[in-house]
């Protein structure tokens, strides 16, 4: 027996080390649609940031003398019934869409992760109270709940973010609670308690990073959904109201002149479609790239 101990062959792993980051990027960009999605989103972000440089006209300034013009070299997509440049409004609309999208998702994801982590890790009464509250919120269709909240809070970008955030928080909470419940049962969590760590420390340092991965994927898909929901609210006239530049309200305002100037509605509608599609594609790609079953492959 002691001979075995003396020999003590080194158990080094000889597997080649693939950089996690490289592997992640490789899987992510395997599909062409994901590349397309990332490209669209990059353009969107750039447009939103450099909106004042890209738009040649003030998107809020009426110019009744040039209302309802067809596309021309001056106005690439024409003007609307108040003479505002449609292209410029589209560019500023990208800002609104991204503000609402990222604002809502950040608000809902942070709140949902905290609530889900607490519910899953502490269990018992905490779990019962948080999860029943979430179930109640989930009983309403998201858009109806958001409608109700905006109606109470009033229109405006901030209120839209709060309303959509509250309406989408249950999704994050339930997902986080579920993964926390499964991560909590791992032996390394028991081992952590066995070395005398406090619950809070265990929860934040050990459970959170292991449970949060699915939320990252949910965030990307929710970005698309939230932008769509904001467009719906604005389309219904209670989200972001004119003269604020939002794609939903633009599409709605262009409705009256659909017969003669279809671009007024179609341009913003196409923008919404393109962006939501791009977010969904990137979300799918991320899901594949973050799949632990594929870890270490390639």
């Amino acid at each position, binding site marked *: 027996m002691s001979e075995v101990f003396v020999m*003590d062959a080194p*158990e080094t792993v000889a597997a080649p080390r693939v950089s996690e980051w490289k592997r992640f990027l490789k899987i992510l960009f395997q599909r062409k649609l994901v590349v397309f999605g990332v490209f669209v989103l990059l353009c969107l972000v750039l447009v939103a940031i450099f909106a004042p440089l890209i738009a040649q006209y003030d998107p809020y300034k009426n110019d009744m003398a040039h209302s309802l013009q067809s596309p021309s070299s001056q106005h690439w997509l024409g003007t609307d019934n108040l003479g505002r440049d449609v292209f410029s409004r589209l560019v500023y609309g990208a800002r609104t869409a991204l503000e609402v999208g990222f604002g809502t998702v950040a608000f809902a994801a942070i709140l949902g992760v905290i609530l889900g982590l607490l519910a899953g890790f502490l269990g018992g009464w905490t779990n019962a109270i948080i999860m029943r509250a979430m179930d109640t919120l989930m009983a309403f269709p998201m858009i109806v709940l958001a409608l109700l909240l905006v109606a109470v809070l009033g229109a405006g970008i901030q209120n839209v973010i709060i309303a959509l955030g509250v309406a989408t928080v249950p999704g994050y909470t339930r997902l986080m609670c579920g993964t926390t419940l499964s991560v909590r049962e791992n032996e390394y969590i028991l081992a952590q308690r066995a*070395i005398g760590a406090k619950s809070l420390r265990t929860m934040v*340092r050990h459970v959170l990073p*292991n449970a949060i991965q699915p939320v990252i994927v949910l965030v990307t898909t929710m970005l698309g959904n939230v932008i769509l929901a904001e467009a719906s609210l604005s389309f219904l006239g209670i989200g972001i109201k004119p003269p604020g530049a939002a794609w939903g309200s633009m599409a709605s305002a262009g409705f009256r002149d659909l017969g003669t100037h279809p671009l007024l509605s179609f341009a913003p509608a196409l923008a919404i479609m393109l962006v939501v599609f791009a977010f969904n594609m990137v979300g799918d790609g991320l899901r594949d790239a973050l799949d632990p079953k594929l870890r270490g492959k390639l």
Partner: protein
Amino acid sequence: MSDQTTCGVPAGEEMLRVKDLETQFRVDEGVVRAVNGVSYSLREREIIGIVGESGCGKSVSQLSIMQLLQRPGKIVGGEVWFEGQNLLEYGPKSAEMRAIRGGKISMIFQEPMTSLNPVLTIGRQLTESLELHLGMNKKEARARATQLLDLVGIPSPASRLDDYPHQFSGGMRQRVMIAIGVACQPKMVIADEPTTALDCTTQAQLLELMLSTIDACKGSLVLVTHNLGVVARYSQRIYIMYAGKIVEQGLCRDIFYRPRHPYTVGLLKSVPRLDEVRGHRLVPIVGTPPNLIDLPPTCAFYPRCSERTERCLTEPWPDLTAADGEGHLVRCYNPAERTGE
């Protein structure tokens, strides 16, 4: 190997005394009496083995001592005296209990694959208890962690501190677990099936390694296992558990050469031995372990017992009574008389 790993007479003062420990799990079907009045003791620098089948309560009894039970598990009775204090007087989340866990008593778990957090580096997991219990700063803890990895035989320890668990093999992870276990020089280490998940050659290496590192920090060891070979080689005293009770206890040589309880006899007959006559068949213990819900007041081993008598069914499970040999106790009305094989 040094003397302390052979079946010698234990030395040193008593440091842990568990008295009538009772742990239950309340589930929908009833009350699971996982630990049902277990008493044992551990002396300084001693190695004891706790042996039993899956589900006999051996792991739960150890988790109870550390107060690491998850709902719906609950300690309903007994005392755990450790260094003059009854640990059960402290709440599971109390500062006193946290100081003991990892600082004075540490645990090494069964599954090296799942006992390390996959998203943190080995270094961060090693330094955690050092910072927690010894108040080291990051630099000191890192230096000590390097030492520890070196101690458990991991090559180029300083650079491997920044690796993640998935870059380590099973055996190496268990080495890391041992390093974490002895990091704060605990008085006592509880190893719960420490080698079950490893292959045989690695098992032997790691057991030797574990014993030498625990010996180096002058600690005691509770070896919880179903592997009789492991306890035979390393422990000084052995406790045999069945259905939440200790059915036989004694010095290693008494248990192996003069087993008295029919269950112990059955266990020994069911493992292959190198000194056995060729062609000798292994004899399994018939039946399955009892359901721990609704345990009868009589002997729980009765349905599987080869030595059962009328008395076993009519009278309650007997107390541990002295058998021949120092501290050799057995819980049976009709203990085997055979001496040795």
